[in-house]
């Protein structure tokens, strides 16, 4: 493999890893802080992609400002959606056993899939890359790399940094970190735990929906995409450790590289490699690379 | 007559990241004695017990059970070799009867592993061991009662009975008197006294009255280190111990000698 190809694959790996990080960080936060294992998390990603498809006409109509506007609308909608969903559904899951949480959120997946099927059908759709991001950047003379993918990586990185800043530097972040390790204590300190949970859940939903919207032009929009990303996110969370953002980032990048290079070097078994990675980590550190609490 | 040393820790240490929870703790447990482990909160007593029982791995040092080096052994293996332990928070099986609790605990000692066929109620060895343990713990009258319906004191007694059902030679008891009133405490101390002849008992406790009544030897821990070991009278007079507690127990240390 010559250097240009290698570079392209590295960029792909980083882009995939960072996108995965957006989804997995929401999952790990929701589990780490709310203590809820949420199978429907992949559905939010799928909703994001279909939202991008549904808003595409709007984006095309206002060229230039359309795409960011669509993204912004998506984020706002998902925060509202997440807030309401937590209030109406997720809050009833807190004290329940894992099995019950798993099955109730599994039921939610079925509901979301069918609602989407009713509203938008089951077809596979493409979403156009916005014009101002549609070009390619030359790499080392022979190869070029799509601008949009660089844009994706950039945006995901920004979000990751923002997430880090919020969690490490703000009071909300402090409450979140404390809540991950000791729920009762945080409550005793006067933090409104209900509100905190609602915010964290809404943020998790927004991250997944945003990731889906961002990924839509690259991965296209199809019914099974939520389930696929969910399982890979689970692998990321297992490798990285529940509740750990750092772990999610490291694990996402690891998975990104293994998957991308696996597909290039050993395409026949590429799909299994991620699980082999997980199995290896399990042997070494059964509770993930960075566990909290 | 030199007593038989059943459990020994040699320079045992346990580190959690930057925190040295147990710092080169050495102590011995001989048959026929009750050895109390006391110390201020956070002194590392529970951690030491966890390392001794095998629940947590040691970061350094050795543990010897009847002369055999068990430092690398898992907790179940040590338990089968005769190291029993009870827990501070009651861990009995609430839905089963007292008898069933003890019989299940005894099963580990007597059944062939993975015995898929033999009816559990027909293991006479386990049944006998359970009945003996229940008798030793003075719970014979409650043997058929559902464990969840017992009083707090009786539950703590059941905790000990489950320990005894496995036929241990060493007993690590983590605050067996926790939450007990004076009558229940007396009953428990009589129980412990009766256990002395065949066993070596390590008792982690905060109730100083009880400790000075029952203990043959006392070890004091502060910040993970053992600062004194000896007979109760010696500990009472030990200047280091008194300064470590800074009057926490100094004024409360009972003057009268207790039982035994």
């Amino acid at each position, binding site marked *: 493999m010559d250097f240009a190809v290698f570079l392209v694959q590295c960029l792909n790996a980083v882009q995939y890893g960072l996108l995965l990080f957006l989804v997995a960080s929401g999952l790990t936060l929701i*589990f780490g802080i709310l203590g809820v*294992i949420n199978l429907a998390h992949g559905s939010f990603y799928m909703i994001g992609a279909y939202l991008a498809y549904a808003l595409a006409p709007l984006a095309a109509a206002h060229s230039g400002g359309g795409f960011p506007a669509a993204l912004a609308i998506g984020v706002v909608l998902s925060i509202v959606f997440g807030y309401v969903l937590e209030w109406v559904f997720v809050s*009833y899951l807190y004290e*329940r*056993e*894992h*099995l*019950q949480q*798993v*099955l*109730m959120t*599994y*039921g*939610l*997946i*079925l*509901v979301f*899939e*069918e609602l989407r*099927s*009713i509203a938008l059908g089951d077809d596979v759709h493409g979403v156009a890359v916005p014009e101002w991001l549609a070009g390619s950047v030359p790499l080392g003379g022979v190869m070029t790399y799509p601008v949009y993918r660089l844009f994706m990586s950039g945006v995901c990185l920004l979000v990751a940094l923002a997430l880090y800043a919020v969690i490490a530097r703000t009071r909300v972040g402090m409450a979140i970190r404390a809540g991950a390790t000791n729920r009762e204590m945080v409550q005793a300190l006067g933090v409104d735990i209900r509100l905190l949970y609602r915010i964290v859940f809404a943020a998790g939903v927004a991250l997944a929906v945003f990731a889906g919207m961002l990924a839509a032009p690259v991965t296209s929009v199809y019914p099974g995409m939520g*389930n696929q990303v969910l*399982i890979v996110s*689970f692998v990321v*969370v*297992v490798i990285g450790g*529940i509740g750990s953002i750092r772990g999610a980032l490291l694990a996402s990048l690891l998975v990104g590289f293994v998957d991308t290079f696996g597909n290039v070097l050993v395409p*026949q*078994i590429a*799909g*299994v490699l991620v*699980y082999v990675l*997980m*199995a290896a980590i*399990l*042997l070494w550190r*059964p509770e*993930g690379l960075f566990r909290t609490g | 007559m030199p007593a038989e040393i059943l459990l020994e820790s040699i320079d045992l240490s346990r580190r959690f990241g930057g925190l040295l929870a147990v710092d080169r703790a050495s102590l011995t447990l001989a048959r026929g004695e009750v050895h109390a482990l006391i110390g201020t909160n956070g002194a590392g007593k529970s951690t030491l017990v966890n390392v001794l029982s095998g*629940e947590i791995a040691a970061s350094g040092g050795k543990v010897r059970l009847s002369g055999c080096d068990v430092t690398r052994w898992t907790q*179940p293996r040590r*338990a*089968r070799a005769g190291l029993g*332990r009870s*827990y501070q928070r009651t*861990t*009995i*099986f609430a839905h089963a009867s007292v008898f069933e609790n003890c019989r*299940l*605990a005894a*099963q*580990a*000692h007597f059944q062939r*592993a*993975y*015995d*898929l*066929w033999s009816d*559990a109620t027909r293991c006479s060895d386990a049944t006998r061991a359970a009945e003996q343990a229940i008798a030793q713990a003075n719970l014979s009258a409650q043997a058929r009662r559902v464990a969840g319906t017992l009083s707090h004191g009786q539950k703590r007694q059941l905790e000990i009975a*489950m320990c005894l059902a*496995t036929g241990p030679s060493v007993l690590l008891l983590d605050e067996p008197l926790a939450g007990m009133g004076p009558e229940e405490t007396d009953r428990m101390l009589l129980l412990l006294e009766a256990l002395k002849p065949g066993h070596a008992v390590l008792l982690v406790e905060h109730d100083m009255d009880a400790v000075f009544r029952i203990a043959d030897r006392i070890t004091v821990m502060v910040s993970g280190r053992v600062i004194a070991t000896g007979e109760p009278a010696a500990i009472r007079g030990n200047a280091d111990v008194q300064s470590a507690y800074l009057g926490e127990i100094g004024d409360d240390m009972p003057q009268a000698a207790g039982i035994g």
Partner: protein
Amino acid sequence: MKFRRFAILVQQTSAWRGWPLAVAVVVLAVFPHVGGDFYVDLVLTTMILSIFALSLELLVGRTGLVSFGHAAFFGIAAYATALLSPSGAAPSHAWLLPAGVATAALAAAVIGAFCLRARGVYFIMVTLAFAQMTYFVFHDTKLAGGSDGLYLNVKPALTLDGITIVDLRNPRTFYYATLVLLVLVYAVLAAIGRSRFGYALAGIRANEQRMRAAGFSTYGYKLAAFTLAGALAGIAGFLHAVKDGFVSPEILAWHQSGAVLLMLILGGIGTLRGAVLGAFVFVLMKELFQSEALFGAFAKHWQLPLGLAVIACVALMPNGIVALPTQLRRFRAPLLNAG
């Protein structure tokens, strides 16, 4: 005098808790003679799923290990059966069932060895991940027909000295063979439940730490339970392969793993009859929601009412149908006292 003895006999018989089961077995045995082909096939499918659910009950109900990847062993056995079935009619390939089961058991032992390193919610996630891995192996590779699936060459028969004892090509024979296997699996699990091994598993579910402190090497017990559960799922997988003579990767999909967990919670976790009941209720619900007679064109969106039903059942009846009488009694008691 005679009447009194008769009365005592009646009392003892009706007190025997086994009679609902006996009635169920009789009903199932008689059913092919009274039911239409479609319904007999449905009952057959449900019996196979019951075996599948029973196998998971050992793991989830008794040992407390929530596995979201149990479909892997169902599927591996089904595929093994299809792959190992000889191309021509062989004198007897009764060995096909043990072969399928053994494959599933081996897979369960290996996968279990990894998964059991994880605890709690990690365990749920890794079982899901490993099951997805096996789905990938059968769906995306050419190992066994890929996404098209695989046909069974010849359905097995058990012969002795040239006389066919059990010919599974005959649908009636197959039905009764399935029923016999269902009863056997149920009986085996009931026996295990009363055994020392079964009690040890129950103890592990209640408080694993306590069991370790008593001297049980719990990892070994859990792995044994996991392997046994995989092997029993293999029986169901074998039957599935033989029933239609065809296997497809969809039986390994995580929806299968979710469905079987659902069956358990519907019926009632912790009881064997709950597992079987749950399987029947689940299949009934699915048939109901897919019925065009009831829902017309909306029937193709059957997953919506199913999803809502799942949420409702788990929320309102977390202990399942078998616990319903107790739940209702508790409901009524305060009303009775108040009035």
